[in-house]
């Protein structure tokens, strides 16, 4: 006890010293990017506005944070307790949690509809339900490439674009219906997955990531500049809307969804139909992935992810293994893309930027690579979270009128990616369930596997 007492003042002094250093560093970093804001005036000349108040607040926050972190890190730990992590308490109920989740998703639009009426429900089902499910589906698709096969693909959005433009062009130029275009979009995207996958077979890790990024950007640049084909920046508009297997969701007395079922017309019908469509597509993606993991090809993907050389020396054909992973992932992105086109009724290259790719990648990584449930949680957190940012009106009251929470969306996104890598590199779902086992199937910590799930 005595030694502890004598040690504590110097610990505090050290903490304060660290705090001062951090605060000085923060002050240096803030100069001049936060201290002054350069904004163009009416004559388009830049004028500086100083913001020392804000800068000083940040310095103070950094100081306090650094001191507390230092004190926390150097606290005298009474006794080091080694915690042996057993399998999660939820483990026996995982199956039931999944069923309950699916049931909740099925009743979600109807519950919202009863609670809020068709006007209020439209926003909820569209902004939260459909929007999140699109990203869940994209996350599951990318999970095949990144989580299972271990190929870091930074150009995934290109296949999403191929799917979206397939539907947009086939429906506007040739008048094909959505139900014909959907499989076609998937096939075309898978084909592009193989075309782009073929040259990068020899690359691994970081190089693969950069080349796929380059391919993604090439496809986007072509979409922007080849105006005869894709109408450039202006994009393709007036894409036909979704129909209920031929019955349009229009306000009409003959041959529409509402007249066929003798119910009053409401715009919510289309939204709910879209919701169930994307739910079905997403669950199909999930189902196919789960089944594929038990097939030889799925095991080959996971073997490839863990050790390519060992995998090759065991006689697995890495070429076909990689190509199927690319093609499968791309196919689901193609489905999602054509859904995106039919939902928006408009596609333009602006929707398929690198930021979109990194959003999907962030969802896969934050969820815990290879974990299907993790992707769902991460998508709800990231997409739902950013949608909620729009709702936070009270923040305007705190930070003043000009404060717009939405502009912090991508900033928080980026920070979340970095912090997640530092604190929980294995993602939200960090336990791993082996896909193949000797006597007993039990989950292990993610730290025990080299790359992903399983």
């Amino acid at each position, binding site marked *: 006890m005595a030694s502890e007492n004598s040690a504590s003042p110097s610990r505090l002094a050290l903490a304060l010293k660290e705090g001062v250093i951090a605060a000085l560093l923060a002050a240096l970093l803030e100069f001049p990017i936060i201290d002054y804001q350069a904004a163009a005036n009416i004559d388009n000349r830049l004028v500086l506005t100083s913001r020392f108040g804000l800068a000083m607040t940040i310095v103070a926050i950094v100081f306090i944070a650094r001191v507390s972190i230092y004190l926390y890190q150097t606290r005298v730990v009474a006794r080091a307790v080694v915690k042996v992590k057993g399998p999660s308490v939820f483990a026996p109920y995982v199956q039931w949690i999944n069923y309950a989740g699916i049931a909740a998703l099925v009743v979600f639009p109807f519950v919202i509809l009863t609670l809020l009426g068709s006007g209020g429900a439209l926003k909820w089902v569209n902004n939260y339900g459909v929007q999140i499910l699109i990203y869940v589906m994209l996350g599951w698709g990318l999970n095949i490439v990144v989580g299972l096969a271990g190929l870091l693909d930074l150009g995934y959005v290109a296949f999403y674009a191929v799917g979206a433009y397939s539907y947009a062009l086939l429906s506007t130029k040739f008048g094909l219906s959505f139900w014909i275009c959907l499989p076609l979009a998937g096939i075309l995207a898978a084909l592009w997955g193989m075309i782009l996958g073929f040259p990068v077979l020899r690359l691994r890790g970081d190089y693969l990531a950069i080349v796929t990024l380059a391919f993604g950007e090439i496809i986007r640049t072509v979409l922007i500049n080849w105006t005869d084909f894709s109408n450039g920046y202006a994009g393709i508009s007036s894409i036909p809307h979704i129909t209920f297997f031929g019955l349009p969701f229009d306000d009409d007395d003959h041959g529409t969804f509402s007249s066929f079922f003798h119910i009053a017309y409401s715009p919510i019908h289309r939204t709910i139909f879209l919701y169930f469509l994307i739910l079905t597509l997403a669950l199909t993606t999930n189902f196919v992935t789960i089944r594929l993991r038990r097939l030889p090809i799925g095991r080959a993907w996971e073997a490839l992810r863990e050790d390519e050389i060992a995998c090759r020396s065991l006689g697995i054909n890495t070429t076909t293994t990689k190509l199927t992973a690319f093609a499968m992932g791309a196919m689901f992105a193609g489905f999602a893309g054509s859904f995106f086109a039919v939902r928006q009724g408009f596609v333009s290259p602006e929707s398929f930027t690198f930021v979109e790719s990194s959003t999907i990648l962030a969802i896969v990584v934050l969820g815990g690579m290879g974990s299907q449930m993790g992707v769902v949680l991460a998508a709800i957190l990231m997409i739902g979270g950013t949608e909620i940012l729009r709702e936070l009106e009270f923040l305007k009251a705190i930070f003043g009128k000009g404060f717009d929470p939405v502009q912090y969306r991508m900033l928080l996104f980026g920070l979340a*990616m970095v912090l997640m890598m530092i604190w929980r*590199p294995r993602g939200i779902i960090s336990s791993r369930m082996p896909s193949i086992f000797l006597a007993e199937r039990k989950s292990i910590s993610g730290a025990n596997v080299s790359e992903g799930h399983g």
Partner: protein
Amino acid sequence: MDYFLQQLISGLTLGSLYGLIAIGYTMVFGIIGMVNFAHGDVFMLSAFIAMIIYLILTQLLGVSSLPVVALTALIGSMIVTSAWNWSIERLAYRPLRGSFRLAPLISAIGMSITLSNFVQVVQGPRNKPISSLFTTNIVIHQGADFPVTVAYNQIIIVVGTALLLLAFWYLVQKTSLGRAQRACEQDPKMAALLGIDVDRTISITFIIGAALAAVAGSLYVMKYGVVTFSDGFIPGVKAFTAAVLGGIGSLPGAVLGGLIIGLIETFWAGYFSADYKDVAAFSILAVTLIFLPSGLLGRPEVEKV
């Protein structure tokens, strides 16, 4: 011929900027084997810092001597950007040593998104125009149709890059710091056993990379006179292409690669179409990585099992 000469001058200028950024990529890759995805955004940040220091000096302090202003902005930007990159390495990359293979790359992508959006939030999303500096043209050849000119800022960029490269080459080849750096590149564990502070060497590598990116950023603002928060991504990817083309890990390779990319891009835009110039650069990246993964001046990578 005159047209060719004029394009050549622009290409060399652009290529020098790419080369300066590429050095940051190639050094970091050499020492910790990581693609520092945020490096392009560090370049963008440095351009903003230089721009604001320039505005502080001219508007608030009323300094009128242009060379003094430009030099102060350059040095100020180098110092502040180095501090930024040091902090980034300390906070976002160092805790990840020994983590799984893709962790540093993902963290760097997160950092890249963070930096560009940070600048967007604190400085606003619109273009920041200041007028280009040192735009006086020298006529070097009176052609039949038009005179071939070279602007002062182009001379500054090319000569500045050459001088920096010389200084840098001396640093890496002749000083103990450079020796430590090359040792860490070859075998960090062995270097640590021999008493080299590996963490410190890596920190210094990031600082040097940032300082060179800051030179590129300041010169970029001086030459083009406008900067916006999204300006980091495309130059970043092109500089990375340059690093790969020259052979990643090789310093002369980075500059050579930068010049080649700059020239190809300028000639492509000058003779074919400006629309697809990014496609040209990206295709070079893909083709190099696929068919010539060790680059022009790099050593072939030997994989140990």
